[in-house]
């Protein structure tokens, strides 16, 4: 009987072990890991190329450089410098939570922005700034399902439902699909308080950047008009010393990119 008992015990242990290894991690852990893949964990700059399409035809292209760092509250703050088109070169946007400013060096004017004011065609100002979702949203794991990724391949993914816990955020709720194998963000759907779909975003073209495989392109599809699409390409990630003091309105006139 002893061998049978032992075999049973081994089998039970294996089954429990297998079950434990397959158990989904917590929604919080998935979201934090996914944030860590989208955003480097140290101050950095990145070149952002926005390409706008209407009905499949390119209608605009903009190049920016974004300088980001984590603030003491755990959220990112960014200064975005316009590079192209030429008429906008040198203009700056600061996003530090909801403290958003636009600075034009030609007339020295600093203008306070509301989240609804867009400087970048169809993309919102927040799209080009880095955001730690785990700071502002409470995630719930709602399903494990197959989803099409940005390269049009099927992936097994965790579906998270994110609800805003901070009143200052632009989106009331978010649906998010994260690769079950490696926590890479695959796709997000952003909703207004009225539950209206504002946009769908795919994350794709994962490449090694600043110590991890990160998405180097996102595809933003307008919620109202799916024929309106903005591609955002992220390139030239560089780790930089960006002091916390840069992330305020008074620094904008003195900003000098290195």
């Amino acid at each position, binding site marked *: 009987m002893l061998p049978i008992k032992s075999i049973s015990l081994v089998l039970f242990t294996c089954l429990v072990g297998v079950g434990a290894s397959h158990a989904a991690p917590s929604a919080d852990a998935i979201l934090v890991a996914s944030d860590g893949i989208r955003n480097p964990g140290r101050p950095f700059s990145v070149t952002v190329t926005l390409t706008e399409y209407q009905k499949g035809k390119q209608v605009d292209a903009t190049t920016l450089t974004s300088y980001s760092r984590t603030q003491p509250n755990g959220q990112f703050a960014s200064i975005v410098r316009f590079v192209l088109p030429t008429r906008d070169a040198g203009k700056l946007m600061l996003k530090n939570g*909801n403290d958003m400013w636009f600075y034009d060096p030609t*007339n020295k004017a600093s203008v306070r922005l509301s989240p609804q004011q867009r400087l970048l065609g169809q993309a919102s100002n927040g799209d080009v700034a880095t955001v730690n979702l785990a700071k502002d949203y409470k995630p719930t794991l709602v399903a494990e399902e197959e989803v099409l990724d940005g390269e049009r391949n099927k992936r097994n993914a965790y579906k998270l439902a994110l609800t805003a816990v901070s009143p200052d955020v632009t989106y009331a709720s978010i649906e998010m699909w994260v690769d079950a194998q490696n926590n890479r963000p695959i796709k997000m759907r952003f909703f207004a308080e009225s539950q209206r779909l504002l946009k*769908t975003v795919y994350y794709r073209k994962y490449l090694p950047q600043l110590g991890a495989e990160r998405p180097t392109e996102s595809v933003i*599809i307008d919620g109202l008009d799916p024929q309106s699409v903005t591609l955002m390409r992220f390139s030239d990630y560089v780790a930089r010393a960006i002091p916390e003091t840069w992330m*305020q*309105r008074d620094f904008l006139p003195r900003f000098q990119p290195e």
Partner: protein
Amino acid sequence: MNTYTHAVICGCLYSLSLCVTPVLAANDELDALSLESAPEVKPAAPTSLKWLAEGAWGNASQRYLPDSRNIGRASIDFSYASRLAPGWRAVVSDRLDYFEPALASTDATVNSLREAYLSWQPDGGNSIFELGRINLRYGPSYGYNPTDFFRDGSLRVLTTADPFALRENRLGTVMLRGQYMWSDSAVSVALAPKLADAASANGWNLDLGATNNRDRAVLMLSTQFSKNVSGQTLLYKQAVQSTAIGFNMAALLSDAATAHLEFSRSSEPSLIDRTLGATNATPTRNRFSGGVTYTTVGKLSVTAEYQYNGFALSQADWSALGGAPATQLAYLSEALRLQELAARQSYLIYVTQKSLGHKDLDLTAYLRLNPGDDSKLFWLELRRHWPNFDLSFQLQQNIGNANSEFGLLPDRRVVQVLGTYYH
């Protein structure tokens, strides 16, 4: 069609739409995923030269003359910033304008050296020191900035009536400036010495007399009061006058609305006394401007602003000058030179609509109303963008009776077409 049949057909159509919509959406997403980004453009190196060339042609209908007059302008505008060494930067910004016909009291060709300064930002980036001609501008308001203490005399030529674009021609003041920043606040001091006595009409003069005709200093403390509210407190001192105080604030009201205000209090000659050269009396009065900006999802931004200048003439005093239109015109000219509000009170509605019917067409318009005499200034611009070129149409209409602030101005209507090439 009876009600029942109608209901059945509508029900079927609704059911069909429920089935078809997700399929369409999925197809749209697949189409979107087949798109490719534009070729990458490397950002410009830190050493950067930026310039533009602009030509304007237009016509102004006259209030006091039967014939209209043609107006023209050619401008070259450049700015250059160079990193000299780690932490060191040199900045030069200049503009050359040629007017046809020449503006009153200046040459036809006017060169404006707007900025020329050295900047030093020691390691750590928390402090900055600057020396040279610096364009230092305070205040979040759109049409009147009581806390912008270095504004007077800084506009050498007027090329537009747009209060935002107007500041692009502004001359900096020669000063030594230091700033120290904490994570959510900053303090700065600027010292501007007297370098000349009076402004120059010579178009090639540096015109230090316009910006540095007395010793001046300003101390500014900037504070982030909360996540949504920030402000600046200023103390300003100039030779002979007592210290002026100023305060400005900007706040986020909602996802779509922001608010701003500016206030200053000082003891100085009134605007009419300045015009008449009688500057002995220095009453203590206030200046104020405050407004709200609302932006719609459709990229329409509307700003409503109230403006008050305690040093300006009251409506009764302005009317009393009605028998001396030359004095009234001199008063308005002095207000423009000082970038002051000529009326005791004024309202401004400022509107921008991006992508007006076409992705690359923008509309900017404003209406300035003097409630005392009901005169108005209306200005509108339609601007079409191409990658390196803008084509604009501008209309300015000065509306009011002959004794009013805007009705008194010599130009009744100004129409202009502008072409701007950006490099």
